[in-house]
């Protein structure tokens, strides 16, 4: 029986559940670093007084600037200093840094630092940053706040819209959200007294990339910096880009010759880490008489904050929207303009799902709004429009491998029993009180893409491949060294299942080493729903090589043909016989009796493999049932159903966990979490009193069903699944809220759908304040 496909328990869990994990904050023995941050959104730095290191100290040491580059003519290039130089550009931007013996003392010291800043007007929201005469965020480099502007159109778009049977216009707004990992960011650096080598432990997703950029900034060889991501308490994209703070922590440890640590607190994390998602989409869609979406025109604006993130740049949100907007649909004509607009707000990084929660909200609201105008229900309009011929090539050239867009929706609708729901809804509408609503969302999730996809973005550095080194030691145990950097996803468990099947051993005899630049091959880390496809694919290929080596060893030992050797249950046997040898015995031979190796064979059992696929598309259908209280605007999610097709499931339990966590963040995006700035650029949501992640009380049980269409674009047949939950849930919930209030004429296309926004939509639709419910 194969190990792949089984929900074996996660090897990661005992450590975490017993509370014996090692996070950056657990390392200790270091002086405390505290950053002095700008209290204003925009201003000129006149002076910094007090016991702090400033940009002058970094400059004097020759520390360089961060350059996050896209090679595009429409992209504004900047050199970003590690501490603010001359100007501050958002509340929370680091201006100076202090070091104290304890965190409390460092905070005392930071209070003594006096920032003399001449405040300037700030550009805050999308409209504020785009307005004529808006304050410029980078006036020396650009005469507008538009930092990247992509545009494309297929021929004949305008004509297609003109002749459409029905045209639907729609604007959707996505509020600013923060990834909010349970563990905020942090780093700890020690420089050896002799030799001067530095070890950085940091809560990050891509240790090798972080080593490269920090060494570039500080002018040191990469061999002199070891970067380790110990246990990481959630990341979700927020810990993918370089943290300016981490580079400064390395610099401080080298300059001071003492261990230093920066443990970000929750307020810093909310104010000055990375945000995401603040976007506006305007769609014009043309449908033919059979309700086919024929033409789609979009104008997308993403607020990208004050600085780009390295190495992903501030093109990530707007350009992903441009490339992937048609989603699971097949418009023949597509045109889009997508801009990234700088503002005096916290910079943006990718956050689980990146632009696709908003893309999906736009498309799925479009379908629900178009359906009644075309005389259809939400299921039928999707049935007529979802991809069903594979491979499908999108108007922007993306190849969609085979999926189950329609099948997933049909299964989800049967599972929830839509007919029974409509009967309940009918009764509730007559009775008044809380109103039930149901929302459907279908979407595609582009996952597991390597160098080809990243190269198309023309980044200053091109991420992509993953390498794996795999060796069997003399005891017969396998060590897998990966460039990916799992941080809670369960990748170690899943990889051990892949290896166990290929090598004929037990997952308990497989160890995975990750997240340490001294002990792993160069790789890109864990993000973009890629690790299972890429690190999994490379592991699969390497394990096949190891199996080949073991097969030839066994053939030699058993005097059989290599093709006849079967590796299973810890034994190498000759097919169809009971003649065999323990794999552990082969491991001994390979290391300790190399005189018995086949001629020309290398001693030992080490192999390596790389993998770099073009990418694959997962798909899913989410269905949300909500109750909406028209008098308060309060929304309760009563039921949530996911039908997911992520290709081959290596460990279904782990996949379910990925989906559930993502759905919770998606529900948060739809209803609760929003980073809010006032018009002067002051951030108002700097604690968990004001920024509201859901609690267990706000989340229903999440029911998950699987379809399993093996990908022809990956060697394992697996597709990525890390982001789907966050992508689909917001649109499902918003569609459900709209469905609940449809009889009142409500149309609400902004998320989060806070109670106040829902209530305002009810008031606006009904024209008068709704009376109280008794």
């Amino acid at each position, binding site marked *: 029986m194969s190990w792949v496909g089984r929900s074996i328990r996660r090897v990661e869990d005992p450590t975490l559940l017993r509370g014996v994990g090692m996070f950056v904050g657990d390392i200790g023995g270091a002086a405390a670093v505290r950053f002095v941050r700008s209290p204003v959104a925009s201003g000129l730095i006149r002076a910094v007084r007090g016991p702090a290191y400033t940009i002058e100290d970094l400059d004097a040491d020759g520390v360089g600037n961060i350059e996050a580059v896209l090679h595009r003519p429409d992209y504004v290039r900047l050199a970003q200093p590690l501490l603010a130089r001359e100007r501050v550009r958002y509340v929370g931007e680091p201006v100076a840094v202090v070091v104290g013996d304890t965190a*409390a003392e460092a905070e*005392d010291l930071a209070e003594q630092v006096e920032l003399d800043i001449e405040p300037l007007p700030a550009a805050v929201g999308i409209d504020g940053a785009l307005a004529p005469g808006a304050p410029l965020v980078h006036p020396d480099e650009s005469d507008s706040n538009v930092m990247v502007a992509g545009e494309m159109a297929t021929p004949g778009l305008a004509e297609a819209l003109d002749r459409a049977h029905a045209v639907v216009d729609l604007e959707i707004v996505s509020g600013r959200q923060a990834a909010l990992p349970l563990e905020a960011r942090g780093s700890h650096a020690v420089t050896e007294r002799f030799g001067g080598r530095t070890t950085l432990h940091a809560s990050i997703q891509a240790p090798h990339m972080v080593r490269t950029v920090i060494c570039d900034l500080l002018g040191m060889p990469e061999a002199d910096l070891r970067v380790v991501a110990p246990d990481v308490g959630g990341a979700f994209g927020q810990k993918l880009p370089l943290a300016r703070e981490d580079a400064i922590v390395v610099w401080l440890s080298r300059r001071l010759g003492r261990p230093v640590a920066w443990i970000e607190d929750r307020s810093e994390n909310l104010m000055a880490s990375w945000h995401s998602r603040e976007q506006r989409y305007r769609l014009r869609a043309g449908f033919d008489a059979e309700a086919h979406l024929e033409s789609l025109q979009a104008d997308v604006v993403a607020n990208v904050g004050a600085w780009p993130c390295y190495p992903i740049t501030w093109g990530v949100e707007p350009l992903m929207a441009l490339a992937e907007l048609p989603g699971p649909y097949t418009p023949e004509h597509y045109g889009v303009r997508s801009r990234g607009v700088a503002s005096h707000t916290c910079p943006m990084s990718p956050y689980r799902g990146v632009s696709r929660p908003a893309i999906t909200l736009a498309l799925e609201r479009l379908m629900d709004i178009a359906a009644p105008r075309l005389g259809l229900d939400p299921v039928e309009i999707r049935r007529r429009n979802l991809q069903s011929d594979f491979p499908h090539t999108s108007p922007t050239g993306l190849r969609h491998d085979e999926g189950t867009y329609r099948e997933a929706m049909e299964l989800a609708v049967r599972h929830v029993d839509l007919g029974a729901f409509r009967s309940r809804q009918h009764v509730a509408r007559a009775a008044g009180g809380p109103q039930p609503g149901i929302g459907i969302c279908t979407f595609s999730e582009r996952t597991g893409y390597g160098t080809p996809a990243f190269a198309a973005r023309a980044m200053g550095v091109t991420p992509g491949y993953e390498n794996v080194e795999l060796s069997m030691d003399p005891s017969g145990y396998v060590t897998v060294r990966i460039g990916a950097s799992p941080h809670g996803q369960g990748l170690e468990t899943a990889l051990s299942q892949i290896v166990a099947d290929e090598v004929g051993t037990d997952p308990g005899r497989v160890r995975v080493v990750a997240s340490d630049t001294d002990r792993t091959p160069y790789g890109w880390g864990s993000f973009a729903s890629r690790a299972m496809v890429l690190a999994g694919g490379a592991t699969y290929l390497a394990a096949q090589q190891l199996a080949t080596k073991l097969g030839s060893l066994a053939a030699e030992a058993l005097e059989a043909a290599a093709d006849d050797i079967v590796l299973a249950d810890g034994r190498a046997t000759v097919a169809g016989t009971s003649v065999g040898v323990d794999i552990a015995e082969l491991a001994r031979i390979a290391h300790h009796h190399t005189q018995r190796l086949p001629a020309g064979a290398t001693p030992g059992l080490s192999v390596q493999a790389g993998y770099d696929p073009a990418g694959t598309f997962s798909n899913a259908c989410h269905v949300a049932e909500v109750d909406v209280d028209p008098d308060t*605007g309060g929304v309760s999610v009563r039921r949530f159903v996911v039908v997911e097709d992520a290709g081959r499931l290596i460990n279904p339990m782990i996949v379910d966990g990925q989906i559930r966590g993502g759905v919770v963040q998606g529900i948060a995006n739809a209803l609760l979490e929003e980073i809010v700035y006032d018009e002067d650029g002051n951030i108002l949501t700097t604690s968990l009193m004001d920024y*509201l992640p859901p609690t267990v009380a706000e989340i229903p049980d999440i029911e998950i069903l699987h379809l399993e269409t093996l990908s022809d674009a990956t060697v394992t047949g697996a597709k990525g699944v890390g982001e789907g939950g966050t992508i689909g849930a917001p649109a499902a919930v918003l569609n459900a809220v709209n469905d609940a209030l449809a009889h009142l004429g409500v149309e609400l296309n902004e998320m989060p759908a806070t109670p106040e926004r829902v*209530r305002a939509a009810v008031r606006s639709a009904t024209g008068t304040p709704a009376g*109280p*419910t008794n």
Partner: protein
Amino acid sequence: MKPARFAYVAPDSIEDVLDALDRFGDEAKVLSGGQSLVPMMNFRLARPEVIVDIGRVGGLDGMSVVNGSLTVGARVIHARLEAPTGAMPDGRTEPLGGVLGSLLPEVARFVGHLPIRARGTFGGSIAHADPAAEWCILARTLDAEMVALRRGGERVIAAADFFETVFTTALEPEELLAAVHLPILGDDWRAGFCEFSRRAGDFAVVAAMTAVRLDPATGAISEARIGVGGVAGVPVRLPAAEATLVGEVPGAEVHAAAAEVAAGEVDPAGDLHGSAAYRRDLVRAMVARALAQGAGAPG
């Protein structure tokens, strides 16, 4: 997120607590359950020089019934009010009856989350005086009496005089809130409580408590109390809305009319969690629902 430097004293008698408060005055802050004070210190929004921890003092965590009122000791944790009991004059401890006996559990479940209810204290919440805190709304609506001790003295402060503005009470720096007297409310009273918050366990955006006394002969309302939190710096009573109820028999239309007056009677300020207009809408809904709940109808 680390507190500024402070001194810490933990006396083991009331006398020593009062001495410490007398000595340190407004440099001191009383620590009870710490569920509000400690986070505020970590944010450095509160910077007391001296923390006077009353956790070792006996005699502050009792509940007793005397002369139709329940005396709740300042250090009674929220969780005990989910199933309130009281020491009777004869020394027995019994489940608390009366309308208050049913109202307290109904309100207690809205106070924070289980860990907060297991540590935070009734007196701590009253003395902290968050205008949206459930116990402050209850104290104001029921005209509770606060017992304040100081070295060599004691005074009783009416709820109407106790809450002054946000996080500010009539307690002097040298005074300790020792207990709160709550009326038990006889069988002729009907009470209800309704709260809207963004998430389970959050402070209310708006919450309303209502208590009406019915004339046993006519069934009409002879006395009415409506208290609302989340619309001002302190929990407020709404006398105009209360007046519309007096003389009326409870019912949907009567409740709706009172709720409409209530919505017009408040003058909330807007903030991140709700504009002024939205809070008025919530006052209308919460008051109507609290009245309906008190009348035994579904909300």
